[in-house]
């Protein structure tokens, strides 16, 4: 955890002032689209594209009030509920299925473990698009189109190799003495997994959970393929409907909904950014 010592405060290079000016300049570029969106959501539609000012001179709230009417007769909470259902389901699936797999890879010495691990890492590099057509055909034959199952089942079957990998990296770092001692005391693997490894893996589990939630929340292609009735649509698809409906006239509503759609992601990010960023860094380092 404390890898920080190595950073050298290199004194003679750009002074503090130059550093802060540089960082601020990047910050402005990075945050500009976000701030612009916030401002635009309070502007009347016709001012959104053309006006250069970031914030409206005469802020309005009608863009948000329009959201209350819903999109094409569907109240927007419906989309949020659908997205929440899929995202929370995905989190539960990933946390349990990936941690079980990672536990087996790191703590159980079963035959074929090395080959399976290689295969698992291999799937990390596999372009998802090779699978979308056959998977679609399979789910179509099983009559699961327009249900949430195709979007959730992979999460419960540990197909997100990235998270298995992340948890394996983490579990490898746990002291061996702990589970050896537990085994001498007569604990089985299930007990060790549940009472020792899982609590110690909290940081890796939280990282995976947040990443999963945000990915599932943002996902567009999955819902686009598998959901075809508007009342099953997720937030991403609801936004897409907004564009379809009429792009020019209701820019305001669209921007307002874009922002509202991001709120859960932003909230998660603000609450857990430490975990997210450290998780990202550890997964890359030993890769």
């Amino acid at each position, binding site marked *: 955890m404390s*890898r920080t010592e190595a*950073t050298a405060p290199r004194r003679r*290079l750009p002074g503090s002032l130059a*550093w*802060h000016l540089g*960082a601020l300049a*990047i910050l402005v570029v*990075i*945050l500009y*689209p*976000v701030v612009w969106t916030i401002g*635009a959501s309070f502007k009347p539609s016709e001012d*959104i*594209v*053309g006006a250069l000012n970031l914030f409206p001179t005469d802020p309005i709230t009608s863009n948000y009030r329009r959201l209350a009417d819903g999109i094409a007769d569907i109240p927007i909470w419906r989309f949020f509920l659908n997205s929440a259902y899929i995202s929370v389901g995905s989190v539960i699936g990933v946390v349990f299925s990936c941690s*079980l*797999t990672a536990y087996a890879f790191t703590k159980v*010495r*079963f035959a074929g473990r090395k080959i399976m691990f290689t*295969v698992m890492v291999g799937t990390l*590099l596999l*372009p998802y*698009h*090779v699978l*979308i*057509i*056959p*998977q*679609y*055909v*399979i789910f179509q034959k099983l009559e699961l189109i327009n249900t949430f199952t195709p979007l959730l*089942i992979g999460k*419960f*079957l*540990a*197909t997100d190799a990235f998270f298995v990998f992340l948890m394996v990296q983490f579990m490898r770092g746990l002291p061996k003495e702990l589970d050896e001692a537990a085994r001498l005391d007569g604990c*089985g*693997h299930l007990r060790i*997994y549940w009472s020792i490894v899982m609590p110690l893996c909290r940081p890796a589990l939280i990282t995976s959970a947040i990443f999963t939630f*945000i*990915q599932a*929340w943002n996902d*567009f*292609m999955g819902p686009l393929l598998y959901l075809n009735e508007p009342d099953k649509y997720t*937030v*991403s698809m609801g*936004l*897409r409907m907004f*564009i*379809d409906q009429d792009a020019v006239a209701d820019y305001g509503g669209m*921007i307002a909904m*874009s*922002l509202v*759609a*991001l709120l859960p992601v932003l909230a998660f*990010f603000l609450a857990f*950014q430490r975990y997210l*960023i450290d998780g*990202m860094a550890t997964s890359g*380092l030993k890769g």
Partner: protein
Amino acid sequence: MTHIQTSASGPALKSDPAAAEWNGPGRKNRAAPQPRGHRENLTGYLFMSPWIAGFLFLIAGPMVFSLYLAFTDYNLFDAPRWVGLQNFTDMFADPRWRQSVKVTSWYVLIGTPIKLAAALAVAMLLAQKRWGQSFYRAAFYAPSLIGASVSAAIVWRALFSDGAVVDRGQQLFGIDAGGWIGDPEMIIYALVGLTVWQFGAPMVIFLAGLKQVPKELYEAAEMDGAGSWRRFWSITLPMISPVLFFNVLLETIHSFQIFASAYIVSNGTCGPGDATLVYTCYLYDQGFANSRMGFASAMAWLLLVAVGLVTAVLFWSQKRWVHYEEDGR
């Protein structure tokens, strides 16, 4: 080891169920120095069973199926009809397919290096210990999470359309080009901009790598009179090359698969004039809008081969430029 022990206790074991049962959970095994073995295997497979099922039914099985479909004509309703290499010859003769290859290659070749260069430059800036450093780190990372969403693509569309912020900005420099969204020459750079904006994820990985570089190396080099450019080329870059390799690999594979942003920024048209017809857009269009599942499967397999080739080339090239610490510094 365990395996040898079991078979040593009698070859009759295998054929005699009664003996096996007696030997199984009984006392004799418990006394053996390693009581686990088959049990350990069974536990392993039980723990792995979700992954094994997922791999067979959602990855390996579908891959075999899609390889078969690639050689058929299939519209989802009639039975697949074997057509041999027809899909592949059709593909090479198809100007829209060639366009999609061109657009995607361009996007990968332009977007990935710019994004990684930005990520590395900013990571080097943030590697210095300064006040507010962790705030900047978090703020720069944020777009990596929202960049993939439909929201970000919608905002991008608004920022780059005719008469919008970017257009006005250009006018300040006397360039009156109209918006990038409607311009087939420029819209791809709006997409590149969107991916570069998300430099935060590789940046964080670079940062972690930079922290591992021993500062003594810099001090020694400085004493030898090496300038900052020289120190970057001779110390920083070789020392972080494993992390650089990881980022190049991940970002390249990732860029090949761009879909949502191209689809939304172009308003579902992959236009104007097929200017944002990235490979997956065309795959989606052929497979799901035109019901040419066989053709789309063939396309997917070519994508897999292309990504595999790029990965292989990168792994092959890493011997020349990636330095792991075991090799000595």
